[in-house]
C-alpha cells in the first residue's frame, strides 16, 4: 500500500519585513535583512517555503552590563565601547543584526540624555554595516524620549525600534512613521492584546509590513511553554490569513534565558546541575532553539558560544 505524504494547504503566509536601508534606499547599511515570508509551519519545507532563514541579533548595551562572567569574558575589552563591541559581534561572532539596548538612559541609573543615546546609535551605525534593532530603557516615558531622538537622528536607516505597548504606542509609532523605521509591538504573553495592538498601530497609519511582534518570550523552565503555544497560534493564524497576526516575531532570548538561575549559578552552589560553562550556553541555546520551532524570525542573544550553536541549528533546519 503506497503512503501519501500529507501536505497542509494554507491560504496565506507570514508577512515579509525588511530591516535596514542601503545608500540607494536612503540609509547607510551595506545590506538589508528580510525576515518572515514563511508559507508553512517552521522548517516544513515539503509543504511550503521558508524564504528567509531566522536571524540572530546580538545584544550590545550602552553601559557595561552586569552579565555573567561566562558571557562578558568572551566579549572582552570592547564591552566598554558599544561601537567596538558591535563590530566584534558582526566580525567575530557572525551576528546578522545588532540589538542596541540603552539601559543607561534609565532615570534611576545613569539617566543618559536622548542626544547622548542618538550619538551612540550614530557611532554604532558607522562601525557596522548590518541593520540595527534599538530599544531604550525600561522606563516608558524616558524610552519614548530616547527613541524619538534616535529615530530622528537616524532618519531613513529603517531601524527596528521598540517598545510599543498597548497603553503606550502612539509617540513611538509616530516616530517610526515620520522617520521611516520599523516598530516592535510588545504584548505581555497575550495573543488577544498582541492582535489588538497591531490593529491600533496599523490604524495610526503604519503599514503591517513595518511591524514586528514581540510576544514577551520566557526563559527555559520559567514559562517558555506559554509563549511557545502563543507563537504557534499566531503562526497558524497568519497561515489562515489573519493579517493582524501575520507579522514576523522577535524573541529577546538572551535577556530571558540569562535571568534564569540555571544560566548563572555555580556548580559549587548546585552540584547536581553540573558544569556552569556548558549549562549557561545551553540554557540560552535551548531557549532559542525552542522558539525557532514555533516561528521566531529574530532571536536576540547574548552569549557568543550559544549564538554559535544556534547558528548551526538554523543551518541544519534550513537543510
Amino acid at each position: 500500500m503506497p503512503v501519501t505524504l500529507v501536505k497542509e494547504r494554507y491560504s496565506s503566509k507570514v508577512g515579509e519585513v525588511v530591516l535596514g536601508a542601503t545608500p540607494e534606499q536612503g540609509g547607510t547599511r551595506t545590506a538589508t535583512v528580510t525576515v518572515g515570508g514563511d508559507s508553512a509551519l517552521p522548517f516544513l519545507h515539503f509543504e511550503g517555503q521558508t524564504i528567509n532563514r531566522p536571524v540572530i541579533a546580538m545584544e550590545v548595551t550602552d553601559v557595561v552590563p552586569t552579565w555573567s562572567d561566562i558571557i562578558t569574558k568572551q566579549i572582552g575589552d570592547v564591552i566598554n565601547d558599544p561601537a567596538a563591541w558591535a563590530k566584534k559581534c558582526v566580525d567575530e561572532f557572525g551576528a546578522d543584526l545588532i540589538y542596541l539596548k540603552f539601559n543607561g538612559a534609565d532615570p534611576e541609573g545613569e539617566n543618559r540624555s536622548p542626544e547622548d543615546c542618538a550619538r551612540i546609535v550614530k557611532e554604532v551605525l558607522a562601525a557596522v554595516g548590518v541593520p540595527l534593532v534599538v530599544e531604550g530603557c525600561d522606563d516608558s516615558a524616558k524610552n519614548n524620549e530616547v527613541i524619538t531622538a534616535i529615530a530622528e537622528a537616524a532618519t531613513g536607516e529603517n531601524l527596528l525600534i521598540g517598545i510599543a505597548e498597548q497603553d503606550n504606542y502612539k509617540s513611538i509609532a509616530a516616530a517610526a512613521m515620520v522617520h521611516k523605521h520599523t516598530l516592535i509591538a510588545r504584548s505581555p504573553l497575550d495573543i488577544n492584546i498582541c492582535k489588538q495592538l497591531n490593529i491600533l498601530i496599523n490604524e495610526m497609519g503604519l503599514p503591517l509590513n513595518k511591524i514586528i511582534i514581540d510576544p514577551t518570550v520566557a526563559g527555559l523552565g520559567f514559562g517558555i511553554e506559554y509563549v511557545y503555544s502563543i507563537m504557534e497560534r499566531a503562526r497558524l493564524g497568519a497561515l489562515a490569513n489573519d493579517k493582524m497576526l501575520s507579522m514576523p516575531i522577535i524573541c529577546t532570548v538572551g535577556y530571558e534565558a540569562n535571568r534564569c538561575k540555571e544560566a548563572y549559578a555555580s556548580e559549587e552552589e548546585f552540584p547536581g546541575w553540573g558544569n556552569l560553562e556548558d549549562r549557561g550556553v545551553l540554557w540560552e541555546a535551548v531557549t532559542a532553539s525552542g522558539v525557532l520551532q514555533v516561528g521566531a524570525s529574530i532571536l536576540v542573544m547574548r552569549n557568543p558560544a550559544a549564538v554559535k550553536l544556534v547558528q548551526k541549528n538554523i543551518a541544519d533546519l534550513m537543510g
Partner: protein
Amino acid sequence: MLIFGERINGMFTDIGDALRNKDPKPLQYWAVKQEEGGAHYLDVNSGPAIPTEERVAAYEWMVNVIQEVSQLPLVLDSTNYNAIEAGLKVCKRPAIINSCPAEQVKIERVFPMAIQYNAGVIGLTMDKKGIPKDADNRVAFAMELVAAADEYGLPMEDLFIDPLILPVNVAQEHAPEVLESLRQVKMLANPAPRTVLGLSNVSQKSPDRNLINRTYLAMAIASGLDAAIMDANDDDLVDVAATCQILLNRSIYADSYLKVFRTR
C-alpha cells in the same frame, strides 16, 4: 464564515430596471457597497427581468460590469446553465455555480463545467420532486452530491451543500431539520463539504425579518454553516457572523474584532 452578498438580483426593482436598460451603475453601486459591508463573494442573478433567450448575453454583461469595480469573486446564480457558462468564461477569479440539485442530468452538466472553469458548486438537497421535509432525506441528497464531487474530481471544499431553508411563517418545521442537516453534512466526507444557506428565505413575509435572519444565522453557524447568501449591508447581521467566528474560536479575539472581520 463567508458572506455571499445577495443584492445584485433582478428581483429587486433597481437591478431589474438596470438589466433592461443596460445601465451598469446600479450593479456597480451594489458591488462596491456590499464589499464595504463585509461581503466576500457577490451573488449575481438576473431574475425574471431578462427573457430566457437573452440570458446568456446578460450574464456575460453583468459579470463584466461588476468586475470593472470589484475584485470580489462571483456566485453565478441561475437555472440556465448556458448563461452560467457564459459568465464563467469572463470571470477573472474562481467563481461558484449557484446551483445544482441532486439530479443526474444536471450533475452531468454542472460538475464538469465546474472543473473546467475551476469553479465551486452549490449543491441543493432536492431533486425533481422538490424539497424534502426531514433531515434524513436532505442528507441523502447531500450524499449524492458528495459522491458526484468525488466522481468528477471536484475538491470537497469547493462543494457547498445548501440544505434549503424555507420561510418560518409557513414551513416552521423545516428550520430545525435544516440545522440537523448542517450537522450531518459535515460528517459525510473528510475533508467535509462546505455548507451554505439562502438565509433571507427564512424570514420571507414575516415581520422583524432582520431579527429572524440574525438569530437563525447564529444557530446555523453553530450547526456547521460555512457560508450564507445574505444581506451584506445589514450591519447587525454581519456583526453576528463576526461574533460567531470569535465564539467558535475560528478567529483569534481582539477588541476590534468587528472591524477586523470587515477589513481583510
